[in-house]
């Protein structure tokens, strides 16, 4: 009797764990990000280890990660190309995430305001990790550390580009092999 209950309990644990490991995309509301990101607390924040863990949760999700900041003008210029792809990837396992490298003490003031002003539809995550030397090479050893930079993260596959996309077509052809 005890063993039977234990096995039920363990099975329940397995089921819960399996649900927790579902692709991130299927667990998140499909509404545009600006509708939910009103304050900094509404924006997922982590250090680089936390970011890696988060990427690992998405079983069959392909992440297109764009490193940017509200203080980076070339970054802001190319954001519309990522935004243009937002409708196309709804209800697919492809997820664009704009990884903000804003200055921590400015983030509360600048990041939600920017998201609202530009009505950003893609998810924004705030990467608050003060020592880039500890993580830039993990993204890509050839990365000098300049932003913008774009990282494609798919099970078993990685792609990286340092610098801006000149137009939407250039971004599309960069991600095409991974989607």
């Amino acid at each position, binding site marked *: 009797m005890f*063993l*039977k209950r*234990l*096995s039920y309990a*363990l*099975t329940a*644990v*397995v089921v819960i*764990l*399996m649900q927790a*490991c579902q692709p991130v995309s299927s667990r998140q509301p499909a509404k545009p990000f600006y509708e939910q990101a009103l304050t900094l607390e509404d924006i997922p924040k982590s250090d680089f280890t936390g970011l890696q863990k988060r*990427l*690992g949760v998405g*079983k069959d999700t392909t992440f297109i990660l764009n490193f940017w900041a509200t*203080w*980076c003008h*070339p970054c802001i210029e190319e954001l519309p190309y990522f935004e243009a792809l937002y409708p196309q990837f709804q209800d697919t396992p492809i997820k664009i995430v704009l990884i903000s*490298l804003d*200055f*921590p003490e400015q983030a509360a003031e600048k990041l939600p305001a920017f998201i609202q002003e530009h009505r950003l539809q893609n998810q924004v995550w705030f990467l608050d990790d*003060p*020592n*880039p*030397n*500890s993580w*830039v*090479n993990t993204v*890509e*050893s*050839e*990365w*000098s*550390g*300049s*932003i*913008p930079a774009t990282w494609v993260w798919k*099970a*078993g*596959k*990685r*792609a*990286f*580009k*340092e*610098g*801006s996309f000149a137009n939407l077509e250039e971004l599309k052809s960069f991600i095409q092999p991974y989607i």
Partner: protein
Amino acid sequence: MKQVLSFAIVMLTGLGIFIQSRHSENKAGDSTEGYQLGDQVVDFKLSGVDGASHSLSDYYRQGAEGVIVIFTCNICPVSQRNEDRIIALHQKTSILGFPVVAINTNDPEKSSGDDFAAMQARASDKSYPFDYLQDMTQEVGKSFGAGHTPQAFLLDKEQRVRYMGAIDDSPYNAANASQHFIEDAVNHLKQGTMPDPAITKSIGCSIKYRT
């Protein structure tokens, strides 16, 4: 009963392996051409905000044991956050024989606020104790493979690159820095040893090259 138990254990183990196994890499990055560690830097001559021309070889003729070349600029917010640090660095290392030479490679046409007059104004406002040079042809930035600002290179007495990368481990906030990479690298050279680490990474603004 045992079967259910072992099924549960197998599932849990499987999940663990699945999560662990997602770390393979497949690189397809841009590579930046430029000097590598140990390369001897070719002499260059650039205009400084003091109105004079400065050659790399000048510093050595004036008795430098090495030179800290830092690519920086007026307008990059990360450079601005490192400005006081670069001043303090020069004050510390120049007396050891390692002056800072700051170089602005940004195309002033593409980077408003990085023209020569603005460079002169900034250097004057902050009383830069080091030379601030304009790399108008962008040849020097390209030869170093400089990708962003701020980015530092330490040259030894033979003008060979012995360290490249970040000033310290906290580019956004000087108060939080615990490893002072450039200073440590200078101390290594003073003691006749090789800097360790010799290459570090930071975050910064892309240098605006003419395309």
